[in-house]
């Protein structure tokens, strides 16, 4: 494992027009959580303190990459409705994701994301876990 790199997280990488984020985690559920945190980071969301409701997502897609895009698109839609996930319980399988999420209010938001793209999207597994690069259309 790379001693310089934390166990899981995300980091922005250069992109001329949009925003590209490298996400890495020890396992797939954590990769999805970190990708969600990256999305909220780009949006510049200020979260509320009180849990307002629970949301359950069940997504089925043709592969892991499509699941990740669909999962983030769902969060983007909720963010549009001023709701942000603050706690995640996620089960990822080859073609499905089940996510239990506690939602809080989005008090403010600094940026809009038009979409989560499939461009160059590939989830890699290595000795440390999983990593991927996601390009967000801004």
């Amino acid at each position, binding site marked *: 494992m790379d001693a310089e790199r934390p166990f899981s997280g995300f980091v922005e990488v250069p992109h*001329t*027009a949009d925003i590209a984020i490298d996400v890495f985690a020890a396992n797939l559920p954590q990769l999805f959580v970190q990708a969600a945190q990256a999305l909220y980071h780009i949006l510049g969301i200020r979260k509320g303190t009180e849990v307002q409701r629970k949301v359950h997502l069940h997504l089925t897609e043709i592969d892991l990459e499509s699941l990740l895009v669909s999962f983030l698109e769902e969060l983007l*839609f909720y963010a549009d409705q001023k709701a942000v996930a603050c706690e995640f319980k996620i089960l990822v399988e080859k073609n499905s994701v089940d996510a239990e999420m506690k939602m809080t209010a989005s008090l403010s938001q600094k940026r809009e994301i038009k*979409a989560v*793209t*499939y461009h*160059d999207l590939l989830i890699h597994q290595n000795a440390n876990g999983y990593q991927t690069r996601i390009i967000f259309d801004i």
Partner: protein
Amino acid sequence: MELRDIKKISDYEWEIAPNTRPFMNVPVRIFASEAMLRNALKDRSIEQAMQAAALPGILQAVCVMPDVHQGYGFPIGGVAATDFADGVISPGAIGYDINCGVRLLAGDISHVDAKPYLHELAIKLNQACPSGVGVSGSIKLGSKDLKQVCLQGSGWALMKGFASRMDIQTTEDQGCLEGADPFAVSSRAFERGASQVGSLGAGNHFIEVDVVEQVYDEEAAGAMGLVKGNLALQLHSGSRGFGHQICTDFVKEFQKVVQKYHIHLPDRELVCAPLQSSEGRKYLAAMRCAANYAFCNRQILASSARQVFEDLFVGHYLRNVYDLAHNIGKIELHSIADKKTKVCVHRKGATRAFPAGHSELPEIYQKIGQPILVPGSMGTRSWVLVGLQASMTKSFGSCSHGAGRLLSRTQAKKMIRGDQLRRQLMENGIYVQAGSLAGLAEEAPQAYKDIDEVITCIEGAGLAKKVAALAPLAVIKG
């Protein structure tokens, strides 16, 4: 890809052979000076253009404009035409902000007379035209009206009193693409779109008050109502969350569609469907709904801006010069190997540029050609051009859409502080109303290519010619 791998056709035209990559079906034709091409080679835009050449049924060449920059799957500043009979349509080659576009209005008041009121004008435009992250539009539509917007575009605004007949005539496709079908649109898109009609949005969307700094073609400028020294107003916006959701829905659905039709592509964001398939037809119908939504959105914004202008400058008016799309898919007739062929032209970060005499142009522009609006970056000049005949043979009647990004948003924010930029613009006589200083820094002039160089390339390639240059006086950004 290196410069030496690209064949020079002329000082402003370059070509990448179709055998450069195994997946390419046609060459890539680049309209740029050597300096601008070198810039384009610094990011992945040219590689992305080569990947776009893999689209099934693609004809002639992928065209790349001088303002090209890296996008996702398909470069921004790219044009690709596919055969309507046996080609495909690709949502990613049109973009998420379907019918993002620009409108230009010409004022009949001089800069000299308007100067004392410019700050007030900027403030009032900012108040009248909702902008910024998550901000709703000036009107909220029920589902019945929203479906009518999908079907009628700017025609809905005309019916409701937000437009004049002249506005409609001077909008690309009269502000309405035929063949839109609201039943092809998801309920989620309707949910996102209901509250956003008449809103500018954030990011690079803007309203800009300009002065007509220089006129290069008196006849064309006269036909457009552009007079040297008078005010003009530009407006840049698109289909908001409605269009974003439609593109998202179909890019997701088409991940399976490409498997069904055994289409192999070098990038998943290029996913597509045959134009003659039920899936392709459904996307086309939905995309047209978003295009019509965007036409209507810019019309409502223009109506609000016009109200402010005419209240402040009593007795003066703002005339619509033109409204055009720069992220769109259009079914058009083009001459391919001397044969009229029905094609789907994907323009992503590229505008239509039809020449004089084209049947699609309104009567007032028949003699001069289609007005082309090429905004510069904030603080720099913008250009008004007209399309030339060569654009029909070289670029499927297409041209540049702007300056094109040079720096990433992060680089821009590292180099430029929003408050300093605002002060600097003010010192140069440009009033700024911005929702976010960080957002302002991201859109700084230094983050963009030199617009004058872009125009030199476009003229050099013979795609369009100069009509007028506009200099900014006030900028409103979300």
